[in-house]
């Protein structure tokens, strides 16, 4: 069973192999809708917009919002400030909410006894179990210079994968240590980690570090990465090849 909806401004795809229960997929999409309505900075009615407009103080926000802020602060400290939801004039937690939401969606599916599935929101993926051929899920990394193509084929299972990149404008790429300076030396950074929440937050932080981000990922135990620079050269971390098919 495979279904795609456009939510949170991006295509969200859920494929489940061991269930035909559409109610399960519906409840997951409903959850993403809820996340969008709470955390979307594009919606004036969202809770995050209320915080940014000064109508709510972060300390008085919902428990869910406060939990996200707490996780964002933890990530900020773990990444030497390269991850920061404060953009100078407003909060934008997109870099952590997406991974958190996908990971939670995967938890919902596990609780519904699904064992072979993936959840893909705008290219950030939690993959569980095996695909229809009984193999690890096959993931392609998009070519930043021609997004109709892929430049790497990976096989993953029971982990999360996230890619940060700049090749479409409107992309929120932000270096808290040099705001206003666009990141131009790298165009794509894919991170594989224990789950998509972890992969997403570190992909976001590492991308803000430019070409040094791949070294940051290299230093992290349990994470591998693949960086593509503006010249079309790719640098994998030393253990990345365990995921590579081609």
């Amino acid at each position, binding site marked *: 069973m495979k*279904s*795609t*909806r*456009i939510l949170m*401004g991006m*295509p969200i795809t859920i494929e489940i192999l061991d269930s035909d229960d559409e*109610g399960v997929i519906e*409840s997951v*999409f409903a*959850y993403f*809708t*809820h996340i969008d*309505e709470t955390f979307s900075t594009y*919606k*004036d009615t*969202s809770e995050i917009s209320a915080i940014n407009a000064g109508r709510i103080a972060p300390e008085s926000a919902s428990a*869910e919002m406060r939990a996200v802020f707490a996780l964002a602060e933890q990530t900020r400290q*773990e*990444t030497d400030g390269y991850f920061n939801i404060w953009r100078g004039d407003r909060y934008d937690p997109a870099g952590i909410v997406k991974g*958190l939401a996908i*990971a*939670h969606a995967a938890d919902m*599916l596990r609780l519904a006894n699904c064992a072979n599935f*993936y959840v893909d929101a705008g*290219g950030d993926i939690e993959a569980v179990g095996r695909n229809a051929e009984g193999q690890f899920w*096959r993931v*392609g*990394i*998009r*070519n930043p*210079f021609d997004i*109709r*193509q892929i430049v*790497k084929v990976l096989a993953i299972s029971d982990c999360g994968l*996230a*890619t940060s*990149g*700049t*090749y*479409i*404008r*409107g*992309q929120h790429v932000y270096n808290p240590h040099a705001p206003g300076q666009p990141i131009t030396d*790298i165009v794509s950074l*894919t991170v594989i980690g224990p789950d998509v929440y972890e992969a997403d937050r570190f992909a976001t932080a590492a991308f803000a570090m430019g*070409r040094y981000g*791949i*070294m*940051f990922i290299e*230093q992290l*135990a*349990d994470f591998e990465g693949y960086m*593509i620079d*503006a*010249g*079309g050269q*790719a*640098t*994998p971390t*030393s253990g990345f090849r365990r995921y590579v098919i081609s």
Partner: protein
Amino acid sequence: MSQRKSSRPSPLLRAVKKYSVSAFVVCSFGAYAVHERLLATDVSAVNQVPVAAVTRQVSAPPALIAQARQIAGAAPVASKPMQIAASKANVATALPPAAAALGTYKDGEYTGALADAYYGNVQVKAVIHGGQISDVSFLSFPNHRRTSVRINTYAMPYLTSEAIQVQSANVNVISGATLTSEAFAQSLQSALEAAKS
């Protein structure tokens, strides 16, 4: 009468030889070490790499993650659909309103309008199957220019790099930068409008 030089060098000469050879070895080694150190300091950029504050297993304490996910409002999914009050439409947004959730689309392929992104145009094709979106692909895409200058690789002293190569294998899913640009949403929206009955 010529005096033959003794076949064995004098002790002094032997000592001088021995020490000069040792000195040569030591100096060469020292010069090499200095040379390597100079190379390393040229890679001063490496010192800028933020050191991960985390050296142990990175996962956040399970309790915190579990708490956050619980708080996100989902009760365990039972056999019947979960009752989450997802309010409909009427949300102000800078992006075009998200397309309606449930399958009101006619099967077929629909091409969206050309939309202007920063590096070029975006045009999206949506494939509807069984009333649902089964595929979203790009007919036109922003052309991010590849720079001709080789980006310094010296900053990654022991990671090897490779030129990217297009792959032709089939995959289940593709990962790339989040496709949340306004242009993408606009083109997709127009494709879905065409698909609605």
